[in-house]
């Protein structure tokens, strides 16, 4: 598979703090890459830097072999990259419909894509005219992901999609992501190892602003010692 996204020696400073310290990894086309790491490792900064929300102070972010680290966020989005932040970024004062209409830049959302969204997340159809602020945490996450896929996108950047969700909702998310990864490339930051193991094709592990491991997700899932060393966890504790 060709690489859709490649980071080469990416550094990011936020104020006086040097957060990303030479990040290198690739996201191959049509794969789901899990970006794992302890709290404060720089995972969210990594996604925000790709999206142009924070500027890379050095290094290259290549999307389809084109350098994008100097582009503005709207231009990066228009290249076909969608971003779901850790706080989901839904517009609470807008209805579910309005949130999706806004994300479909060309006008009203395409019917085929809406049908797909309703199939993946039936709650979106049920609460179509409800204000997003009134949705439950899981429904808000579904809306955030629906918004990312209401237009054709080649790459989805999703930050901790299972954060704070009930186990039953996480199960529904795993199913939805399973379908999404059939035709979309995803880079997902995740703390829930069960979720990561269930869906990830590849994995990149961060620590202290650097990538300390890359490889197949299955290999990491099968190696308890490696998990313990990289993530400070044992598989048994996350069954």
């Amino acid at each position, binding site marked *: 598979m060709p690489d859709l996204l490649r980071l080469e020696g990416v550094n990011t400073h936020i104020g006086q703090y040097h957060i990303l310290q030479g990040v290198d990894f690739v996201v191959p086309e049509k794969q789901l890459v899990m970006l794992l790491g302890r709290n404060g490792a720089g995972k969210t900064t990594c996604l925000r830097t790709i999206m142009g*929300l924070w500027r890379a102070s050095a290094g290259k972010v290549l999307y389809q072999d084109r350098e994008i680290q100097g582009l503005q*966020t*709207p231009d990066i989005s*228009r290249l076909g990259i969608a971003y779901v*932040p850790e706080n989901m970024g839904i*517009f*609470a004062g807008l209805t579910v419909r*309005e949130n999706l*209409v806004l994300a479909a830049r060309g006008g009203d959302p395409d019917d085929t894509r809406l049908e797909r969204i309703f199939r993946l997340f039936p709650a979106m159809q049920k609460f179509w005219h409800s204000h997003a602020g*009134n949705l439950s945490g899981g429904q808000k996450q579904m809306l955030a992901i629906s918004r990312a896929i209401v237009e054709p996108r080649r790459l989805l950047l999703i930050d901790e999609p299972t954060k704070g969700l009930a186990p039953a909702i996480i199960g529904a998310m795993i199913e939805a992501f399973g379908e999404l990864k059939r035709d979309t490339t995803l880079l997902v930051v995740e703390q829930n190892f069960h979720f990561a193991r269930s869906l990830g094709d590849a994995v990149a592990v961060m620590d202290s602003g650097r990538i300390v491991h890359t490889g197949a997700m299955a290999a990491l899932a099968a190696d308890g010692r490696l998990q313990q060393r990289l993530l400070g966890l044992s598989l048994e504790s996350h069954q």
Partner: protein
Amino acid sequence: MKTDWIPLAVIPLLALAALPLVGSVPTWVTLTVAGLAMGMMIFMMASGLTLVFGLMDVMNFAHGIFISVGAYGAATVLTRMGAQMQGGTLAGDLSVMLPAVAAAIALAAVMGWFFERVLIRPVYGDHLKQILITMGGLIVFEQLIHVVWGADMIPLPRPGAITGSFILGDAAIERYRVAAVVVGLVVFAALWIILNRTRIGLLVRAGVENPEMVESLGYRIRRLFVGVFVAGSGLAGLGGAMWAMYQEQVTPAMGMQVLVVVFIVVIIGGLGSVGGCFVGALLVGLMANYTGFLAPKLALGSNILLMVLVLLWRPRGLYPVGKA
């Protein structure tokens, strides 16, 4: 989300509470209409400011200059074309008022564009610098008004069609105040339609909540902000022109003087909320008129008290906007 009617209900409650204190129904009717008219004019001046606050987190103390410039723009047209209003016909009045209002809006909008481009753009994200540079801009441009139009007060002729009063029972209601209420309602309705029924409005509402996410969806929030800033400045100019005709005079400091009340309205309404701004402006207008009649020395203080009470009740304003 159901519409929150409680803040809206405070308007008639305040009016009814004032009735026994005023003691006379005709006087109360006159004061209430005057309060609503004042509220509508303040709403026009404040609506742009609240959106600028909400959308880009910019503290623009120079907003008062758009009010002043609008008033002077209208005054220039009204004094130069005043002869056309001598006939006392509605057509004659409109032939002067419409260009006067258009001049007020256009002048304030151009000024708004200049301010955003030159003064505010370099200080995005820095509140202290925003306060300093916009206050400085307000002072400099107020002095420029002295240079262009002079430091003296300019008396304004009010068109005949909106001069005088209606008699309703024993109450005298100024025509101009009714006209101000009508114009205010039209502006509010237009803003409501734009914000709730158009894609631009959808973007503005989303941008007020979470500008970063709007950018992540592929929209250039900066362009949107410039548009809102210019439109808000134009509205301030319209409010300034209406206020000048209400006062029948213009002075260089009028924008700065009314800015205190404008800020109270923006805070009461909830930063970024046009609906809150509307309700807050009506409350402030009514409060100012009732206390102006009952205890004139407390007129401004009463509005600060109103702000304190509202913030104790709803710390983020009457209709808080869910900022991300």
